[in-house]
């Protein structure tokens, strides 16, 4: 029996769908913004997102400051941040938009820290008295799937990690028009990491609010991932003309990814997600993305830690829908849920001609490599922040072996 003893907070508001962009001036000015500092990455440049952003702000009376996409050659991250900081404060901006995914949102969050709490924050770190301070209005506008971290309350800046509830974006706005063409590997990576986070939260969190977000995220992924990737016949074909259907589906994946970020902000121990990132960093094979790895671990983690619990059986509901759930007898529901997850991998293995691995073996990680990784897991203290105990680590090692 779960006891419903929990706290849950999702600071961000989601704005999703058609003409969403036109809501942004109203929302930002509702938070007191007049001059908006816009950061964007190269992907958003390719989707020509500024072309949509400008008219959305027409007639709003607000001013936009457009930064060029950060160039890899123009210096270190710190240089770019300093540059932004000078421009931002010098010209009196009062709010931030991050247009794009991944590093650009980290830059936006770091900039928000610097301009709201002062640049000393990078030396002194986050102090308890900072917890209550509010930062400047910050909107995150995904142009692709994303990793989920964008909408969480963490920022990574030069290997320093900052965590503050107010760092989560005030607004996550997903507009189909902003979606950029992306490689299938990237889309799968985003979708799979979101799926892992949502599924694990759904099964392990004794928290109806988190479960509600998670189940919506899972349903979004289940309904839009396959249509998105099956719009073209050949796996290796380049993403050609980006049609409306493609954009709509990708927007749904981006939306689910943002939802997974809300959940990441409320839970530290999403095992498959962390394990996926760990493997992607430490394994010797290239091409195994963190998302793919997380999806490989996900069914094993659920089996290992949730076994035949009612919570795992319930997972069939968002994965399969109401009709499928009520068709399966209760004793078979847990197995059916695992089966669906495994089947997703198998199907992608097939349609990608083996490019998406079903197991660590497919990804070229052999038994000896697994043994080395297992050792590393036991030693390293990367798990302390996730709060997983020694026994848990043994179980994780077992997960690794069975994957």
């Amino acid at each position, binding site marked *: 029996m779960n006891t419903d003893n929990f706290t849950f907070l999702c600071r961000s508001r989601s704005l*999703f769908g058609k003409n969403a962009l036109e*809501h942004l001036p109203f929302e930002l000015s509702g938070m007191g913004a007049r001059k908006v500092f816009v950061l964007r990455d190269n992907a958003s440049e390719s989707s020509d997102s500024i072309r949509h952003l400008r008219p959305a702000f027409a007639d709003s009376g607000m001013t936009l400051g457009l930064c060029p996409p950060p160039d890899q050659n123009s210096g270190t991250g710190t240089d770019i941040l300093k540059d932004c900081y000078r421009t931002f404060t010098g010209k009196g901006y009062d709010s931030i938009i991050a247009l794009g995914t991944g590093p650009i949102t980290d830059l936006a969050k770091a900039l928000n820290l610097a301009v709201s709490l002062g640049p000393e924050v990078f030396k002194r770190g986050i102090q308890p008295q900072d*917890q209550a301070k509010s930062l400047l209005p910050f909107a995150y506008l995904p142009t692709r799937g994303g990793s989920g971290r964008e909408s969480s309350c963490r920022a990574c800046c030069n290997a320093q990690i900052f965590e503050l509830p107010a760092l989560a974006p005030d607004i996550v706005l997903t507009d189909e028009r902003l979606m950029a063409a992306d490689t299938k590997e990237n889309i799968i990576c985003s979708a799979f990491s979101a799926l892992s986070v949502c599924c694990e939260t759904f099964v392990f969190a004794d928290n109806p609010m988190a479960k509600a977000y998670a189940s*919506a995220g899972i349903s979004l992924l289940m309904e839009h991932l396959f249509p998105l990737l099956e719009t073209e016949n050949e796996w290796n074909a380049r993403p050609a003309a980006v049609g409306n259907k493609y954009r709509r589906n990708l927007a749904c994946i981006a939306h689910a990814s943002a939802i997974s970020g809300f959940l990441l902000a409320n839970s530290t121990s999403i095992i498959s997600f962390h394990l996926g990132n760990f493997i992607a960093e430490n394994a010797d094979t290239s091409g195994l993305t963190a998302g793919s790895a997380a999806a490989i671990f996900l069914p094993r983690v659920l089996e290992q830690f949730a076994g035949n619990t009612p919570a795992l059986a319930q997972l069939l509901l968002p994965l399969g829908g109401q009709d499928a*759930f*009520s068709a399966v007898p209760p004793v078979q529901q847990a197995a059916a849920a695992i089966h669906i997850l495994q089947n997703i991998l198998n199907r992608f293995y097939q349609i990608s001609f083996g490019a998406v691995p079903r197991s660590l073996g497919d990804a070229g990680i052999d038994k000896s490599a697994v043994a080395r990784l297992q050792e590393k897991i036991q030693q390293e203290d990367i798990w302390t922040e996730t709060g997983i105990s020694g026994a848990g680590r043994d179980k994780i090692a077992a997960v690794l072996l069975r994957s």
Partner: protein
Amino acid sequence: MYIPDYYEFGCPVNIVAGHDSLEKTADILAVPGSSQPMLLTDKGVRQAGLADIVLDAVKDRLDIKCVEDGVPPDSDLKVVRQLAQLYNQKGCDSIIAVGGGSVLDTAKGINMLVSEKTDDLMQFTGAGALKRKLRPLIAVPTTAGTGSEVTIAAVIADHEKNRKMIFGSHFLLPDAALIDSRMTLTLPAHIRAATAMDAMAHAVEACVMLSKNPLSDAHAKEAIRRIMKHLLPLIAEPENKEGRLSLALAAALAGIAFSNSLVGMVHALGHSVGSVCHVPHGNCMAILLSYGLEYNFHKTEERIADILFSLAGPEIYAKTPKSQPAQKSIDCIRKLNRDLFQATKGLHATCLKDLKDREQHPMVPKEKLPEIAQTALGDGMVFYNPEDVDYEDWLMVLEAAWEGVPLDRTKVRKG
């Protein structure tokens, strides 16, 4: 899954739930650096001993500056002004609001005045008039129904000028909602039933009305499931604290759902019955919910069918022929009402004519129905209703609900 072309969703309230969540108050207030709250409640809540439970839980670590129980059943501008003055005089730095909708609305009103350092509330009416964060406010709901701890709106009546001021801003939301199973222990059975049906109406309307979206659906369906599972057992055995907490959470989930996707004609009509005949909101909701579904049946059959799974569970869902689930959903809600009628020994009315006040006089005489229908024409919630409703339509629904007979769906006018 139904995804509308456009939707918004969010609830930036820290939800803290448990059997001892009140004890976390000091920690939550410590984050913004507050330690001298005003405790705001009403006489009923105080008499039930709930304010004392809160005081006991927080007094060691907080310096409660004043405990005020003068909030009237519907919030009042004069009271808000008085209490705001008191807040300033006593040097409070935050508010803990213990109670139902009117306590929280009053607290929101006080918070606007003291944070913006003014005594004119008028300037904040309408949507989006506030531009920055207010002072800390913590909500402790005591009814498991209204969901006002997670709604952005506040309604404050100006009795002198005889009008209602409506406020809507994300800055009005409390910083945290403490959902504690102790708060609903002493709730009388019929009030528990009525408030839970209010939550049910929020959840069901959120799933059926025009602003339905995937995230509000997920919240609403979980709320429906919990109410169906726990409400009846809890009437028989209120000591079950897991059940109480689950039901209180259902109310919060339903509140989150409807504050994002809004409610329709059931609430429009309910507000009107409430304001004309002074019937408690929950009772109106219990009676009117099924009629709202019947009225919109031709436009929302699929949506009504979709909630059967949460209402009746997978087994009944699987066994219901594909042509009947929507009707079955409506039957489920009617059956719940009848069961509650039995469980509360007749105190939970199932039709308008059965509603009685303390002296056993009928609360809704039939000759009042035209006045109610007229009032309903001016309720904004009807905007979110899928089908249009005019004066004759309101009257038709009211007459059926008064008698307690199902609505004749063939008589509903379709476009």
